[in-house]
């Protein structure tokens, strides 16, 4: 394998990892605060992709038709839609489940995933849709190929992640959110208004899923199964990085993306998926808390 070929695999893995990092982050945030893996994240991604592709199709040929503007508006629409659905799901379902066993919320989220997907196919059908974006050639650096579209995808993902991290670290609500995550009872005692914070959390999770879905749709095709198929890798990334660690989720996603791609020459495209699970298994055996997770959350 030439160096260029290895580099290409790594680059592709980074882009895939960047796309998965968004839902992985959404998962880990919800996990650390609501304490269950939200299986509806995948189908929220799908919803976001469909809303965006629909809005973009409506805008084509109008004043907002230019690709960049159209995509921005479409993504905004997707973010709003998914944030609303996410908060509604919290209010109607997950808040009521409250202290119930984790499995209950997990199963309810699977039910929600099915519901979202079936409503999409009921309204729009099963055919694929693609974003109306111009195709551009890759830049070739002596065999290393970089797709401008991938660069944009990576950049958008990076920006969004950076914004979320900054907010968590420096924003007032963000720091409150972390406080609630670390110690919910103490946080409530000190008068933090948990209710509004929870809405913020769920809206954020919805927004992240929406953007992840749009990026995924741009890279591939928009289909009903789009998000569900990425749920497992997103879960795996979250666990690899350590539950409760936003940075861990992102690093986990990137590592898994790159690791999978680099394993292709060795094990072939089919087993690269198994490699992800193998890595996960090994890491958990050695370090049950994941890479950056806190050990006390592990057992």
């Amino acid at each position, binding site marked *: 394998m030439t160096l260029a070929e290895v580099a290409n695999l790594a680059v592709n893995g980074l882009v895939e990892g960047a796309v998965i990092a968004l839902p992985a982050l959404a998962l880990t945030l919800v996990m650390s605060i609501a304490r269950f893996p939200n299986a509806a994240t995948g189908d929220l991604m799908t919803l976001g992709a469909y809303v965006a592709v629909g809005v973009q199709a409506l805008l084509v040929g109008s004043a907002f038709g230019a690709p960049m503007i159209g995509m921005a508006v479409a993504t905004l629409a997707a973010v709003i839609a998914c944030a609303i659905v996410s908060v509604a799901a919290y209010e109607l379902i997950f808040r009521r489940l409250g202290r119930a066993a984790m499995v209950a919320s997990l199963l309810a989220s699977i039910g929600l995933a099915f519901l979202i997907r079936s409503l999409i196919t009921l309204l729009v059908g099963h055919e694929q849709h693609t974003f109306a974006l111009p195709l551009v050639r890759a830049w070739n650096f002596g065999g290393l190929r970089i797709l401008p579209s991938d660069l944009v995808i990576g950049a958008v993902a990076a920006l969004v992640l950076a914004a979320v991290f900054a907010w968590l670290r420096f924003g007032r609500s963000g720091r409150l959110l972390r406080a609630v995550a670390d110690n919910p009872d103490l946080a409530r005692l000190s008068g933090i208004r948990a209710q509004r914070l929870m809405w913020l959390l769920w809206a954020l999770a919805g927004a992240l899923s929406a953007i992840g879905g749009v990026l995924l749709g741009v890279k591939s095709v928009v289909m009903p199964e789009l998000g569900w198929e990425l749920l497992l890798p997103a879960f795996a990334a979250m666990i690899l990085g350590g539950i409760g660690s936003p940075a861990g989720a992102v690093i986990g996603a990137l590592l898994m993306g790159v690791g999978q791609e680099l394993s*292709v020459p060795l094990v072939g495209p089919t087993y690269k998926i198994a490699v992800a699970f193998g890595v996960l298994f090994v890491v958990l055996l050695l370090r049950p808390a994941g890479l950056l997770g806190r050990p006390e959350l592990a057992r």
Partner: protein
Amino acid sequence: MSVTRRELIATPLAAALASALPAGVLAQAGEPFRVGALNPITGAGSPYGPGMQRAILMAIEEVNAAGGAGGRRLEAFAEDTQTKPDAAVLAAKKLIDVNKVQAILGTWSSGVTLAVMPLTDEANLIQMNVSGAPAISTQDKKDLVWRYQATNDRFGAAFAEIAAKRGYKRPATMAFNNASGIGNTEGFRKAWEKRGGKVVASVVYEPNRPSYRSELQKVLAEKPDVIVTGSYLPDTTIIIREWFQSGDKNAWIIPGWAANPDLVKALGAEACEGLISVDTVSAENSGAFKHFDAMYTKAMGRPATTNVYAPMAYDMLIVLALAMEAAGPGATVAQINARIRDIANPPGTPVSTFAEGKAALAKKQKINYEGASSKLDFDQYGDVSPDFGVYVIEKGQLVRRDVVSIPADYRP
């Protein structure tokens, strides 16, 4: 474009009403012949299943409007296989046992057909499918199973013929990881090696992945001059997009169900320029396809070229109806089955619609139905040996450039 609700409701409603009324009310001379339409409405086959179901229902309406077949009206019962063998088995059992169908038409995935065949064979029913797996021919013990799609081996042989004719020397293959995808590329490899050639690279890729760059890279590393695929529309969209953006210059030979107008719609004319799309065709001057296409486009809002299996499903019903007509009133399933080659294979007066065929049969002529999907000449296994149309995408349109024939007795 997607089907409007109104259009989808119309025919199943009629069919459902027809099945709800007691048979005696609607029957003319004889009891209605009950047909089971078993198609992949959901699951991997869902891009094709609804169109196939509609094609069968349309054909039934057409036949009934022309006065029925063999003195009987046709009645439809539709079920979804979900593209899963176990769901299909229960659906087939329901059709056979509850609805008492006498033929099951339109199964798509090889897994579904292989799971349903033992049931239809046991009940001595006619089964018609569009699956590709070789095992279907060998498992067809009672000659009740009819395949309207070229076998994987034949497809592969056609790909090989096309590649050779165009002078390619270094082919590579990319296959979707399922029986059909791998079947096609394996068929290609066997045919290519029979000609003394060698496949320089081959890759099997997983479904539903967001990107196939590493798989593409593996294949392109060997510098092929043509890549032959066994693929479907979503993955082909992603692969061609990534290939085009990478700037490589090789040719592509892709099955017609993946390289169709929807692919052009998704990627634009420039990316698709020069792609070779292969699918089975009817004889050059047969009007059956035009006749079917007109009805299909009206009903579904998109041309029949977007669903290569819909004409096949339509042909299934027309062949069945013509066989019923030829077998005469009061014929048993076995007798009808025995007439299928009669009305579909040469020699005979070529006919391209049911009405034509019925009229010719009335004059005691031997007919040869040339279908909408292919000329429908069934071999000893009940498989069609169609011609293959070689279409090249030029300026966003599929233009037929060549026709390739694989001999009926071809064995890899």
